[in-house]
Every structure is written in C-alpha cells, then in structure tokens.
C-alpha cells in the first residue's frame, strides 16, 4: 500500500463516472462500479482563510474509490482518488494493497 498526493488523469462518462485512469504513463480501465464519498478536511489546520462565501470544498473533498486493471487485463487494483470541487482536477491519494483488498 502506498500513499500519494499526485496528479492523475481520469476520463469520465458524460454523467461523471470515471472510465479510465492514466498514471505513470500507463492506462488502467475501471473494472467495477466506483464508490464516491465526501471526506472531511481539517480545514482549520490546513487553511489560512475561511471567509464567508468561499463556497464548497473547504470542509470536505470528494473521494472516489476505483477498482481498475492495467490495460484492462492486469490484477485488480484499488485507487483512492480525490476530485477538486472547483477545478475538477483529480489527485491520487492512495493505492490499496491488492492482496489485502481481495481478502
């Protein structure tokens, strides 16, 4: 298992569901229905400002847990991604251990 916060490219369907990930020059195909949730942030420790009218994304960020296979054929790997509320940019937060995940 590894922890990351790196950019990652994600292609989505028109309704916003992830289809493909491109990471470290390789392409992964989504292999199961992704899970979405909103994860709390410790904004009071991470941010310098919390002014009124700042909008969404201060208190939580959108997380996606995606199971995908390298080129659609490799072993099933689980990625936790975060999507920035305003910019729509994706970052890779964590890759779960494949063995642990299958247990």
């Amino acid at each position, binding site marked *: 298992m590894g922890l990351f916060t790196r950019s990652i490219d994600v292609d989505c369907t028109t309704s916003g569901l992830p289809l493909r990930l491109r990471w470290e020059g390789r392409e992964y195909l989504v292999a199961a229905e992704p899970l979405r949730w*909103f994860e*709390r942030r410790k904004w*009071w420790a991470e941010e*310098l400002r*919390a002014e009124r009218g700042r909008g969404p994304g201060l208190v939580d960020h959108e997380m996606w*847990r995606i199971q995908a296979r390298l080129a659609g054929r490799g072993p099933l790997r689980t990625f936790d991604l975060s999507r920035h509320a305003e910019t729509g940019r994706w970052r890779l937060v964590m890759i779960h251990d494949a063995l642990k995940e299958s247990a």
Partner: protein
Amino acid sequence: MSFTHLHVSSAFSARYGVSWPDELVRAAAAAGADALACTDRDGLYGIPKHFKACLRHGIDPVVGVDLAVLGPGAGRVVVLARGNDGGAGYTALCRLVSAAHAGTTSGGRGASRPVGVTPGELARWAAGPVGDAGADRAGGAQDPRAGAALTVLLGPQSDVGQACLRRGYGQARQLLERWRAVLPPGALAVEAVTHVNRPGARLSTAHAVRMVRAARDCGVPAVLGNAVRYAEPDGAATADVLDAARALSTLEALDDLQPNGQGWLKEPAQMHRLAGEVAREAGGGAGLAAELLAETARLADHCRMDPVGDAGWGIPVVPEARVIGITGDPARELAARCEAGITRLFPDGGDTRLRGRLATELDTIASLGFCSYFLTVAEVSSMIAAMGVRAAARGSGASSLVNYLLGVSHVNPLAHDLLFERFLSLDRSTLPDIDIDVESAERHAVYRRIFERFGRERVTLMSMQNGYRARGAVRDAGLVLGFENAEIDDIAKQLWRFSASGFRAALAEKPELRGFAERVGSERQLDLLVDLTERLDRLPRHISMHPCGVILGDSGLLDRTPVQPSGLGLPMSQFDKHDMDPMGMLKLDVLGVRMQSAMSFALREVVRIHGSGDAVAAAGRHPLGTDGSLPPFLHGDGRIDLERVPLDDEPTFELIRSTHTLGCFQIESPGQRELIGKLAPREFNDLIIDISLFRPGPMKSNMVKPYLENRHGFARERYPHPDLVPALAETHGVTVFHEQVLRTFATMTGCSLAKADVLRRLLGSETQEPAVEAFFRSHATARGYPLAVVDEVWETLKAFGSFGFCKAHGAAFAVPTYQSAWLKTHHPEAFLAGLWEHDPGMYPKRLLVAEARRMGIPILPLDINRSCAEYRVERVDAGKDGPPGGRLGIRLSLSGIYGMSATEVRRTVAGQPYASLADVRDRAGLTRSSLERLAALGAFDELQRRSGPGNRSDLVRHLREAAARRPGVRRRQLPGQLALPLPDLELSALRALEPAPTAEETVRTELDLMALDVSGHLMDSHAPLLAELGTTPAAELLGLRNGTEVLVAGVRVATQTPPMRGGRRVVFISLDDGTGCVDCTFFHDAQENSGPLLFATRLLLVHGITRRTGPRGISLQALQAWDLSVRDALPGPGHLADPGRARPQPPPGRAAAAGVPAPVGTGHPRARTADGTPGALRGAALAVRMEAEGLDNRLPAGR
C-alpha cells in the same frame, strides 16, 4: 422534478443551524420547491419567521421540531405536524414541544431533567389535541383528514438509526416494531439520510440503505431527507464552528463534528440522484428510488400548512371579556370607564375638544374590535396600582386620551398635542403597543400577579433571541481554534460596538484594533479568527426571558405557542417580539425601571425621616398656600404624590440647566448633559424636545444645531410655507417629531392623519418611498403649493420622517425625567439614597458618592448600630451653626459589603443595637471574615470610641488573633438570654499598637470591600503626581475660557459612542477626579493618538481643549490620552508648553479664524440658512458671535 426537504434546522436551532429561515426558503423556492419544512431543535423558535418567508416566496410551510427522546440511547426524532386540518396538527405540536420543556430548568442549568419527550408523550399528541381540556379551539375543529396529527420521523439520530449504524439489524427492526406499537396508526416514518460519508460510516449511503431496508421489512414508509443545517455548502464551516462551540471544545479535539459538509439544502436533482444511489446500493433499482421520493412527497402533502387556518397567522386574539368581569358590550363598558376618568381628571366635565377627541378614539377602537384589549390593559394597570407599585405608560400609548382617562398613561395628550393616529387608526389593524413601566424591584411580583389574574392558560412571558455579537463571537471563534483565554480576552476587550460581520473592516479603521490588525496576516490563525468571528455574526446562541414582554391571550393561547420555563420559573413563549403581530399575539410590555424603584424608595424615605406634611414642605422648600395649606401633591403624613407635582417648578429647571443632572432619568449621560446645557430647558415641553433630539436620527441628520440656533435666536425661524407654522412652531421650524411629519402630510396633501401615518411608515423603504413621493408631490401641487416649497418639504420628510421620534415617547419619558430632577432638587438626600439602593443609572455608584460630596451631603460611615440593610437618610447634628433640627446625611448600608451574605445582614440588623463587640459576636451571627471586614471598614469605630484605646487596625489585629486562639468556636446567645450590661471588656482591653490606617489605606479598603470610596476620593493618592503634571480639577474647568488647553486626570466612569453625523465615530469618556465629572470627547484624530487606551484603561490623563457647551456646561475636546498608572509613559511637567504636543485640527468647512472646535453632534455647520447666504459663511459668523457672547444661549423667550 421536485423535492420537499422535511428535515431542516434553521439558525433558530441555537448553536446548531446556520441559515435564517428566509435564506432557506428563498433557496428552496429558487430551486423550484413548492414546500419546505422548518424543524428546529427543541422548539418552534423559527416557525413564525418560516411562515413569513414562505408567504413571501409563495411556497407551503411544513412545520416540525427535532426533539430528543428521553432515555439512554433513545436518540432524537423529527416530529412533523399535519397541516390544513383546522389547527389540530399545529396545536398538537405546540403542546408536545411544551411537554418536552416541562420541568426543565431555564438554559439547562441545574439540569433537573433534559429537554425531551417520552414515546408515550409522542403517542399522546400524535393522536391529536382532541380531548385535551385546555384546547377548546383545536378541539372544536374536528379532524377533517385521515392520518395522525403528528408524524414521527425516525432518522439517523434515532435509536433505530443508531442500531442501523452499528449493523444491529435485528435490534433496529425490534425498535421499529416497538415504535409502531406505541404510536397511533400512520404516525410513523423512517427518514433515510445520506451525506455520502465514507462507506459504512455515520450518514453514509450504506447507513441510509440499512434504514430503508429496516423500514421495508417492517412495512413502515421510508422518506428521504438531508438533515439540512445550511442553505449553501458554504455554511458547512460555520456548522463546524458551532459544533465545537456548543461542546466547548476546539475543532481539533472534537470527535463528533458533522462527518463532512454535505448537510446543505440540496436541489431536487441532487436529491433524486441520492435517492438513486440509495436504491442502487439497496439493490432496489429505479422502482425503490421512485418509491422513496413518492413517500417523501406524500408526507410533505400531508403536512403542508396554512399559516392562517392552522396557526392563526395575523388574527389578533385578546382575553375573553368575561375574564375581566365584563358580561355586556365591551364598547359600552369602555365608554363608561372613560366617563369616570373625565370626572376624576377634568372636574369641569371636559371641553368640546376633549369630547370630540374621545368620540374619535372610541369609534376607532370599537371599529377595530380592540375594546377588550384596552380594558385588559386598564385592568393590568389598575391591578399594579392596587399593589402599591409605581407605574407609568411609555411609548405611543401616551398619544391616547382613552389611555389617559383609564389611568394607564399619565400624560394628557391634548396638553402636548399628541396625535392618536400615530398610535392607532383604521388604516392599520395591528395591535397597538402599550408599554407600562413599573418599579424594577416589583416587576416579578407584577408578572406573577398578571398570571394569577388572567390564569396560566392565557398568559406567558415573551422570550428573546440572544445572538452572537462581536465579543461573544470572537471568544467562541478563539475557543474552537484553540487560542489562549487571556489572548482572546485582550482582543475581545477592544471590540466596541460593531457587529461581528464587520470585523475585518473594523480592523482597517479602528485605532484601538491597530495592534491586533498588524498581527493579522503575520501570525498564523489570526486571519481564521477574523473569518470565523464574521461567520458567527448574529446567529442565535440561546433564548432568554424578554426583559418586559408579557403575552396575553384567550384560553387557547398555549395551543398557539409552545412555552418553556424562564429563569423566573414562569413559562415563556418560544416566540420573540417580532413574532407577536404576525402570530396575532397581544404583548404588553411591563418594563422594570430602576428609576421608578429609586423614586419610590426616596418617597418612602421622605415620609420616614420627616413624618409630616409640614416637615416635608419645610425640608423640600415646597410652596404653601396663602392660608398655609399644603400643596395639593403633599399629604398630611408626608406622602408625596409625584403625579400631581406641577410640571413648572422653577428650581427644578434651574437644576436641569446647571447640567448637574447625574442620577436623573434620561439626562445624565455626558452627551445629554451637553445637550441640556446648550438647550437650557425652561419648561416641560423643552424636556420632551430634548429627549426627542437625543436620538440617533436627529443626531445623525443634524437637526440639533438648526434647532438650537433658532431657539436661541441666532437664526431667524423659517418655515417652508406659512401653512406649516402651526405644525412646526414648537420646534422653531425644525421637524423633530413624527407628529409633525403627520401634520405636514395632512396640511399639504389634504389627507387624513391616519393616512399620513401610513405614509410616514413607508418613508425610508426603498421600494415604497417613491409611491409616497409621487402621492405627496401630486396632491401638494394640486393644492397650489409652489414647486420650491414641495421640493423643500419633501426633502425634509424624506430625511427626518423615517427616524424622527414619536413625541408621545418623548412626553412619556419626560415625566420620570422631570420627577427625578424634582426629587434631586427638593429632597436630594432621599433621592441619592434611592439611587444607591436601586442603582438605576449608567454610572458606577462611586460617582454618585462623589456627587453627594459635591452637593455637600454627608456620607455617614458604616456603623454596626446604625447601618441597615438599605441606604438610609439620617439626621446629623450640624453643630450650633447648622440648621435647626440638623442636616440630613446618608448612612451606608450593610448590603454592599463584599462577602457578607444576605442572611448575615438580616441577622445583624435584627440584633441591633449592640452594646459591645462581644454582643455583636454573640448575637449577629457573623462569620469571622465578615467581622474582620466590618472592623476594617470602621463599623465598630463608634463602639471602640466609647470603650477604650486603639484604632481600626488594632481591632482587626485583635480579631485575627482571637480567631487564631479559638478556631471554629462561635458562641451564640440562646434566645431569651439577656446580655449583661457590662462595659465592653474586650474593647477596653484592646492594646493600642498599630498606627491608624492612612487615608489612602482606608480608601483602598473601602474600594476593595464596597466598591465605593467614601472617606476620601480614589484620586486623592495621586495628588502629588497631578500637581507635578499641572492638571486642572474638574470643578475649575467652568471658570476657564472656551478653548483653554488643559490636562485633566481621573477615573473612568463612563464610555459612550453615541451616533454621530456622517457615521464617523466619536467616543465620549467621562472622568471623575473627585471634584466633579469631566466629559472628554475623542474625535477621530484623538482616537488615533490614544489607540488601545480608549476602552481598556481605568485611570486616564487627558490633554485637551475646553469647550463651553452652554451657560453652565463645559467639556473637553481630547487631543491625547495616557494611562495614569503607567508612569514611564506619561508626559513630563510642562507638557502644555511642549511644541511637540498634539494640536487641534480645525474641522474642514469651518472658518479657522473662529478657532472653535466643532461642537459634538453638530458636525459641519451646513445649516439650512434663513436667508439664503452660504452656510459656511453664516456658520463662521455664528461661531464668532457665540464666542463673543461666551455662548450664553439664554435669550429671553422669543416665542
């Protein structure tokens, strides 16, 4: 696509909800919703605002509450009322909420039991109010619709929801079955909520799925909700702050913050998507999603409420006439009582003007159906009088002759030209406000009596919402961020009268925040502190009893408002003053006024000390009749009837003009003393005008200066048109009163006074004012007024109309003002004793001690045999040169001593007199420390003087040693045992070893133990320093020329930031230096020069320039200030000659030649001129003239 949110907390869920009802309703309506619920925690606090918002935005209100279920782990549920059923659902909800609070203590203190309901109570009220003896109204309305009156929603916080979270599937079903068994059929639904939290956690989609499954298994309908706490995602951070503040925790340490920020009012499309996600995870597909949404819509339809039909919106309800003993026609009864009033007050039967006015008033009152209301108020008023409590009507109620005749008000509206239409008219149907001031000390007794008289089912107290203000907000923001207490204290102390929402803006401009502002941006978290403080602005923190509102209704009152215990023990409504009119509730303001208590106390002291009318007349120099008879206000036993004291007593007006008005009602503040000095009142009407001028509107719009110039004859009175002379003559052409605005409208447009008052109320409204202007212009032009006149008058109306003052208010206030000044003039000792006893004013008691010293009234020290539980007037032997019978002094009371309990005071007084110290020890039941404190304050000096050697210090030492020898032993004399008449062996054996305490030590002790400096002044010890600095005593300022540069020093006794023209803040600081009070005015530059000293420092040295404010008034325009206790920072001797010292800046627009600083409150001299000469020139000429005349404004009355 539509969706109705059924679980929504507004800001009225104190320290929980973030958005105001109007924001929520606006957002829902904008997203296409046609209904929205308001389900605040623990009460219906936000419901009237929710109704109002829903009516405004055209959607249906749904009404509910979020309540705890009593019992361990029983959780919380949402309860929704059925709507459109003649009020049965709404009534059941009100009764349920009242039941949830019954037996709790106000504010949760002492926690007799927490707020909440049992499942049994839920079941009882879900079945509807029918059968409840108290609920005639709703009971009469038969259930027109199927289903239960209340629906209980079991959401994620319910016991079922918690079991689902723990994956206790069996338990969840069991609990759900139990709920179904308890509640009536159709009264139960499950509320699935997903905030899309981390899978499996609280408020995750999985959590919602489990609840939907449990509901399906048990056959209970499931609806979808979002447990909304904020209208927009942006509110989530505020909710975090509230969660932490509620738990008195830092954000970091709190483990049950909301899981994420998804508790906002999501749009229908988003809620439909969530329904889809829940259905998919539950394996139910599109059919399940549709079912969830359909059930939600069905429940919403069941609960759509009609504010009018269900909750009596806008329908005034008054007590049934029979309650006040009236069986016949209330209108006839009212007329009869008014006739009785005429007989009492106008022995000649009243003239035609009075008769005409009475007929008009009675007609209006009868047409509006308010006869019972007036009779009710009269009933309360006479009930108070029967209790022997002083009372006076205040507010626009004084405009009514009926009120005067009924004895509710003490002002004859005809004598002061007060207009009934300002109070009540056929063009408005809201219940009029009648406010009654009573003695503060008797207020609670009056409340209890009202409850007894009208019955507990018809009366409740009103509540008020206490919102976050700047200081509270910064404290809580600091708390949740983990700031040190001391650091937050330092910041909070500097926040002075601005709303939390303007914190960042204030940082940029307020000098006292300069130090803090510099740190923001450089220190981590300070920016956050500012942002979070602004977020908390105005949000409700808790409710409390309103200081004066009592709600009177019929026997169905408690069907229409939930009540909860107040701090007083009596029930209070969950609605506040803004809700009264819309909810059709009649509120009577019974306000406790300390001045009334003080005056009542003074009157009793006058009787006690003098004992006969003749003695009172002699002492008070009251004029006797030619035959030596007592004046009509004075009874033979010495009682004074203040209401009958003539309003033209010249010595009283002399006192008022002297500006020595400390302690007098309404006219003791520095700003008022300055105004009263300039205005120099000669008659009662001047007092009304004075009080009316000292308001934000007139001060800001510069009405004061033109009025004063005209009054004193510096400028010629001028009227836009001769027709307006009758309306404006009393204020020399300046529009001051609402009544004048009404008359102006009526004169120039020909409209009725009632219509004029409606127009007046629309002034200042952005949307409505143009229509008023159009009406005014067209009608005035049609009546032949020239355009220039129309223009000028409209400008005046526009400027003054919206915030001028109702003359009736001023008149009602002026009565106690005059009465207090009259007492201070004629019976100053009794009056001051009353002030010390009831502390009615804005100043600390020690300033009034200084005032007594200034007036030459002896302050008699504590004495174990003479001091009582109250301040008492006492006769002092004035020696052979003094007046016969001695002078009067004021004896300090035993009550104000630090650490001495009320019981000790009671026992001590009961045991008086004491022959010896041993006697005191035996019978007074004092603790050792109280005995020592009394000794240190000199209460035994008299005993000691009789018995032997030594001084206070010896006695204190002796008591300490004695206590050390006999720890814990306290001999109490048995009842019936007589003290032996022996000399005081203990005192005569006292060893005289200690030096007597110095004057400074004595003063220190007095301040520590009584917060009063009695034997000397606190500043006395600074005398050497002050002599070195060359300060001027307050008493000598009056002898100085206007514009003299001086240093003054003293103790801060008051700080005020009155409203000023142009919005620039002016700070008044009053210093007391022992010779009197200096009022220092800090304009912008002086505030810049003084910075943090402005609000936080107690002992001040101020450099400034004298400004004469009137014939007998002088104040100081401050240039710079120092903290007197920080010796190093003080200027050296000779500061006034230092070329580097602060110098006054001539205000822009004023001719510098005059060299006169701008008078406070008048700002730029752009007075409207009498003859068209430019304002600045005339202002300069005027300034020169005023300077030349020493500002002796008292010209012969030129009216």
